[in-house]
């Protein structure tokens, strides 16, 4: 990943040991914090939306430190889309499970598990959706359109 290759997307990339070291040091903590906010949202401020954005910001930091192109190759776009789709399907699945158990759509207290756990599962699903979408928007916008600029993926 030389500096020259990184000019695709119009964002000049400078390899800086300060940024790389800082990102290496803080990113595990940021990712942990994002997961914590997502999982602990039921009992403290936070939840899937906030936690998802914090988790996705790790991808943004990697983009700053190592260049957006290499980061995008490292985090496969199909994996991101899969995470987002899985989140939607889990949320919708839980919502549509309730009518089968003689409840209304998304009525969580008819579930065989405690409401608390349904809420946790949905928070994790929301976290997956938001994290995948924010990271995906970051990579897609850095690439630009398929027919002008970019690497013509």
């Amino acid at each position, binding site marked *: 990943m030389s500096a020259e290759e990184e000019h695709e997307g119009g964002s000049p990339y400078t390899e800086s040991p300060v940024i790389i070291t800082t990102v290496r040091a803080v990113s595990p903590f940021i990712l942990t914090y994002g997961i914590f906010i997502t999982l602990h949202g039921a*009992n403290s*401020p936070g939840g899937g939306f906030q936690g998802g954005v914090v988790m996705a910001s790790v991808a943004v930091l990697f983009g700053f430190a190592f260049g957006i192109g290499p980061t995008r190759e490292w985090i496969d776009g199909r994996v991101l889309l899969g995470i987002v789709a899985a989140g939607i399907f889990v949320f919708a699945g839980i919502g549509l499970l309730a009518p089968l158990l003689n409840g209304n759509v998304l009525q969580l207290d008819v579930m065989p598990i405690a409401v*608390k756990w349904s809420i946790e599962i949905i928070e994790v699903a929301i976290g997956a959706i938001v994290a995948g979408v924010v990271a995906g928007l*970051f990579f897609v916008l850095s690439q630009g359109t398929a*027919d002008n600029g970019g690497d013509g993926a």
Partner: protein
Amino acid sequence: MSFTLEIALAVFVVLTAVSAALLRDVLGAIVVFAAFSLGMSIIWVILQAPDVALTEAAVGAGVMGVLFLLTIAKTARPSYDKVVESVNFKAVAVVGVLLLLLLSTVPALPEVGSPDSPAVQERVDGELTPYGYYVQMTPEDTGVQNAVAAVLVFYRGFDTFGEAVVVFSALVGVLVVLGREVER
């Protein structure tokens, strides 16, 4: 929380908001806008809305700025003779009158965190208000402590599902517009 800090934050937020609107240079406006969001997130903490503060800090001050920066990196950056936009004083007068009208209602608001505020009465004439219901019944109905999360997922789950789908649609929309449906 000290009154001085609140005044300083309010001045900071108003100044950054006005300069984000006035700056001709888009890059400068984006940076000032991120600073505005950071100030707002601290104000949310003072107003005891930590859920909103987290969102504002992560989305407004963090990700939005990055996405805006990526977008303007695709555009040419013209050099400007003037630093600020020219101001339409008629519009400023209209906005000023509207602002005064709105500010005139502020003295009628209850104090921040006041237990007498109508919005936080748990019972009116012995009946549970919606606020009282959510605050009192959340642990019993759901077993979670954060009433915001309970409203979001349990009481108003359908709205939240809509929100999640809107976020998903945003990504799909950008992929379609940029012609990058499939990553190869």
